[in-house]
């Protein structure tokens, strides 16, 4: 029953952090300068009466605490406000539409692939430490880690899009094309995803690989590794059964912390490849000072990060029996 207590504790902690995030979210955007009315009206000259009417419509003339209560009420009903730049389209519709899906598909696939490659190869090179393979893999990882994500994207577009014409230059799907069946659509979608997918995966994999390698090297110094070797087990069993399972534990916590940087990488990549996702939405919203969207995105992202951390806690509980019993 220790696991249940542990999970309850982590869940409570997550909820408290979520509460704080909600509060911060509210105040962060209230203190930002800039005149929202200007964004809405597209910077045309407007008369003071119109301005006042707009301010009233958006509830910006109420005292702060009233606005806060309204904000909480809206949140509870799933209302994240309406966008400034998209003329009254609910924020929820903008975020929770194609955009979120596109970002999930892109990020989900690249993180998964990067993790798998990083963990497996990181384990193998730790075993073959200081070999030519190890050194070249480590140098390669450091290289991709050092490249700015957007530059990597640009280079991929340049080499494979411009010179080799192998991948499309931009977009999620080919504009204006009609599809005879779902298959064609998926194929086109995936074709457009190659560029950003490769970029993101390459930029993530180096980090995971080196962290895993370090973790395994750490595990090698433990006594039970000597026991495993003394038992005459095969190298593969020693490495993947005894070492890896222990090495994964610190990785889980580290990955959870890194989640916010993943969003940053996604933003860059989506902007460079014009991928129709949340990342690019952030960029557009900042440029257009569209605060409702930003507030909505922050809220969604906070939830995602807190959820990811909680999932990491759960995963850790499953992987480490010392917590369970």
């Amino acid at each position, binding site marked *: 029953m220790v696991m249940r207590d542990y999970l309850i504790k982590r869940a409570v902690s997550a909820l408290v*952090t979520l509460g*704080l*995030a909600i509060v*911060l979210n509210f105040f*962060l955007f209230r203190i*930002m*300068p*800039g005149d929202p009315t200007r964004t809405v009206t597209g910077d045309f000259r407007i008369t003071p009466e119109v301005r006042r009417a707009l301010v009233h419509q958006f509830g910006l003339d109420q005292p702060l605490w009233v606005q806060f209560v309204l904000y909480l009420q809206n949140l509870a009903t799933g209302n994240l406000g309406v966008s400034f730049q998209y003329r009254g389209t609910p924020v929820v519709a903008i975020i929770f539409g194609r955009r979120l899906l596109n970002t999930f598909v892109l990020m989900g696939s690249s993180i998964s692939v990067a993790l798998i490659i990083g963990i497996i190869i990181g384990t193998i090179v730790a075993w073959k430490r200081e070999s030519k393979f190890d050194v070249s893999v*480590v*140098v390669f990882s*450091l*290289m991709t*880690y*050092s*490249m*700015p*994500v*957007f*530059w990597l994207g*640009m*280079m991929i*577009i*340049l080499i494979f*899009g*411009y*010179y080799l014409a192998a991948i499309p*230059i931009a977009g999620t799907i080919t504009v204006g094309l009609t599809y005879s069946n779902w298959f064609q659509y998926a194929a086109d979608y995936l074709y457009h995803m190659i560029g950003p997918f490769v970029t993101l995966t390459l930029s993530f994999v180096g980090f995971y690989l*080196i962290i895993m390698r*370090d973790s395994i*090297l*750490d595990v*090698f*110094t433990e006594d039970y590794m000597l026991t495993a070797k003394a038992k005459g087990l095969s190298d593969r069993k020693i490495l993947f059964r005894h070492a890896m399972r222990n090495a994964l534990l610190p990785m889980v916590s580290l990955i959870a*912390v890194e989640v*916010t*940087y993943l*969003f*940053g990488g996604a*933003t*860059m990549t989506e*902007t*460079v490849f014009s991928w129709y996702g949340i990342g690019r939405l*952030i*960029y557009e919203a*900042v*440029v257009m*000072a569209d605060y409702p969207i*930003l507030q909505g*995105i*922050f809220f969604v*992202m*906070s939830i995602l*990060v*807190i959820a990811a951390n909680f999932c990491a806690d759960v995963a850790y509980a499953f992987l480490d029996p010392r917590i369970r019993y």
Partner: protein
Amino acid sequence: MTVQEFHALEVKEDRFWLYRRKLGDFWRLYRRSRLGVIGLIIVLSFVIVAVAAPWIAPFEPFYFAGDPLMKPSSTFPFGTDQVGRDIFSRVIYGTRVSLLIGLIASAMTIGLGSAIGLVSGYLGGWVDNGLMRITDLFIILPALPLMLIMASILGKGIMNIIIVITVVGWTSTARMVRSQTMSLKERPFIEASRAIGSTDLHTIARHIVPNVFPLVFANGMIAIVDAILSEAGLSFLGFGDPSSPSWGMVLHYADAAGSTVNGYWWYIVPPGICIMLLVMGFAFISYSTDQILNPRLRRR
């Protein structure tokens, strides 16, 4: 001279030789790491380029030296940009900006993070709780969006970029310093120090800081890496300082000129490679330092 003063002198001298010996040992081990030495060479080369920029660069970074978008030639090794400026010179001067921002921003990040970590770890209790909640909050907030928003609030400018990077990046150092401080706090020599009546500040400065320093240094290398990459990203997205040609800014203009779709490779490749090499230099140093300072990673 009183006995105390004499004793203090002795202690100081001892500590000096202790540090010198520790540094000597460290350097000896470091010298053997190929990656570490290469990293150091790379970083030093960039520093030299940055310092000697006015003498190395053929043109001023904002001087309209030639026709727009010319391919590389002997006059313009990296070609020209869309308003005719020499890209080679801009990249050389960009070394200054990128290095400067990287070093200052990371120093401030480490400084802020360490201060908060030290206070939180040493004082414990409510102070610790409160500071940790705040830290958690900053960890939760998505880094890049927060940076973008702050950048758009504060406006363009080098100092603003530095502030933005610091505000977003101090949390990891704070956490690390805090856990180190908390484990050091329980050690007997800290108790001894308090027992002879040292003030808290004295204890922190004399005993905790030197022991935390090696880890902070390793963390500092990572902070420099993050700072350089963050600045590049911010500038690329258009939130940088147009009056200083950092590599990120050059790439921003490269993108604006449609370099990827028009094949202006000379505009894209050099600044990116410079960022990559400089970051790699620091990453190598960080990697080698880590291998030495973390005794478990050393060759058994």
